[in-house]
């Protein structure tokens, strides 16, 4: 054998043809324009949250801050009046957390169990049940509003934390089942068979084999459910009251204060506060997106 002692430059890139260069430029230009469109409103709100309300009214709604302040954030969090109770968005923020976290966890767990049962446990009528559950994904929420109102009335859960959480858990299960089923269907059948021979039952197989292989879909589902339930407005406004109101419903009443003067400053801050949790979840979860967990299971 001959020894190789010089290594050539291994970073060669295939040269682009002129038409490809033009294509690239057009592509990037389009993407930048689109990104600007999406980011503009966000930028305006962020800027307004650190401007004085007087400046916004005097200058214009869209503009650079001439003086900076963080006062809006404090007012929005703890002092702004909503329906004549001047507590800021704080209590509504915590009400949302109290609803969203359990509803997200429970609907994700149910989705994963459903997905496992529907794909790997030879359930009779699995195909039919799957279709029936996922019809919920395509049903407009307005359609189910009245049935839910009646159902919650029967259960004595109208306009309560538990009631609205229940709505979100059940509505959310349609999505989580769809996601998890489509992920778990690719899990090798042999793993489940091996576990059966090893004497593991449904829940033991679920815990020991399926869950450890599911972080990618669990994270996707959690991000989806958390964001969706947190941002959800129609159910929130319909099934809430002064005893229990999620932040999205509370924001509606924020600007209508005693003076009638629009408070763009702390309004912007309140909107941003309401937008923070889904963003946090997204940035935390995205980092844990683990790929290729099934490597080595099946050759």
């Amino acid at each position, binding site marked *: 054998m001959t020894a190789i002692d010089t290594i050539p430059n291994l970073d060669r890139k295939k040269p682009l043809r002129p038409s490809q260069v033009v294509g690239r430029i057009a592509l990037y230009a389009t993407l930048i324009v689109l990104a600007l469109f999406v980011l503009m409103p966000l930028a305006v709100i962020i800027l307004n949250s650190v401007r004085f309300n007087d400046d916004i009214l005097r200058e214009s709604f869209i503009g650079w801050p001439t003086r900076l302040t963080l006062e809006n954030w404090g007012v929005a969090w703890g002092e702004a009046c909503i329906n004549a109770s001047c507590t800021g968005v704080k209590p509504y923020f915590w009400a949302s957390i109290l609803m969203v976290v359990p509803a997200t966890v429970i609907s994700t767990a149910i989705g994963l169990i459903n997905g496992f049962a529907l794909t790997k446990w030879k359930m009779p009528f699995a195909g039919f049940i799957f279709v029936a559950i996922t019809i919920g994904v395509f049903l407009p929420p307005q359609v189910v509003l009245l049935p839910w109102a009646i159902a919650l009335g029967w259960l004595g859960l109208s306009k309560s934390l538990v009631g609205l959480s229940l709505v979100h858990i059940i509505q959310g299960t349609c999505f989580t089942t769809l996601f998890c089923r489509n992920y778990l269907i690719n899990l090798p059948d*042999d793993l489940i*068979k091996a576990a*059966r021979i*090893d*004497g*593991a039952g449904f829940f033991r197989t679920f815990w020991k084999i399926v869950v450890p292989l599911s972080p990618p879909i669990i994270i996707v589902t959690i991000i989806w459910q958390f964001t969706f339930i947190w941002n959800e407005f129609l159910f929130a406004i319909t099934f809430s009251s002064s005893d229990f109101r999620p932040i999205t419903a509370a924001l509606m009443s924020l600007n209508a204060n005693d003076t009638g003067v629009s408070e763009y400053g702390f309004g912007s801050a309140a909107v941003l506060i309401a937008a923070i949790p889904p963003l946090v979840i997204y940035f935390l979860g995205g980092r844990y997106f683990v790929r290729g967990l099934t*490597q*080595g299971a*099946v*050759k």
Partner: protein
Amino acid sequence: MAALNIENVWKKYGNVIALRDVNLDIRDGEFVVLVGPSGCGKSTLLSIIAGLEDTSHGTLTLGEIDVTDLSPKDRNIALVFQSYALYPTMTVRQNITFGMENRKVPKAEQDKAVADVAKLLQIEPLLDRKPGQLSGGQRQRVAMGRALVRDPQLFLFDEPLSNLDAKLRVEMRTEMKKLHKRLGQTIVYVTHDQVEAMTLSDRIVVINDGVVQQFADPDTIYQKPANMFVAGFMGSPSMNFIDVEVTGRARAITAVHRGDGADIDFPFGATREELAPYIGKTITLGVRPEHFRPAGEAGLTLTVNVDVVEPTGPDTMVVFSVAGKSLVGVLNAKFRPEEDDDVTLSLSLDEACFFDTEGVRIRGLAE
């Protein structure tokens, strides 16, 4: 260890019948290999034995116990999958102990079992790795280890070596045989590698289309195949089949192939009295490629026209034609004719087989 008795087993998936009336009597400690073409029902039969699938009809007896309706965990069998099916998020050790944990085996006993098996299979240094960090051969060993710790009455293997490269496969095959000698377990082993089937097995089951074609020891399967399917399936290259008309009288029989332009006579004289009832009829003669020898050796002399020459290393495979009939021979490596040459070969007829119009082998009078 236990004997396995499979009686009248059928399996239906929707409207596909995957197994038809399978009857096998597998002895205690026997190494049985299932072979057959893809889709013939080998894995289905294994799944049924394991209890992963129910039978549509028929019974299974393991040892003295009717296990037809027992769940896999109650059957005391172990299955090694073609894919190995190692649990990817568990270490090798956890993979091996998972079954024992489920059966609530005391920790000390588990540790001992793992240590024994790891030593036997030489996987001690791998115990704390995940399957993703192992080579194909190492995964195969771990899969075997997981099966061995069960100390089952019956081992099932579904093409356990087919994912390995050729060299490793031969090594593992030898190890497998040693392991069986040492442990003496009853084994049912699926493969579509004929060499594996011939070398490993005490007996071979040949399946086609869900039907057992023959269940016999390797020599019988090779030399006295039950029918044309078995004859053609076992052996590589395949047996040559030649249509022949049986002519002559009871103790002076000649089989004649009516070829293009010329006939080929295969004289059998008094050696094949079983053909007497077929005089005047057309049947099929089967000769194996290795029954062709270089000219000069005993047998029928044939002049053939060479079409293709394929040296394989130890042998030379030659495709040639006689009277318009294309045949395959496997000869000595030194035999290297040119393509399109006319060469003379000798064909030994001692081990030739005959098949009737149904494809069933015509038995010798002494059989």
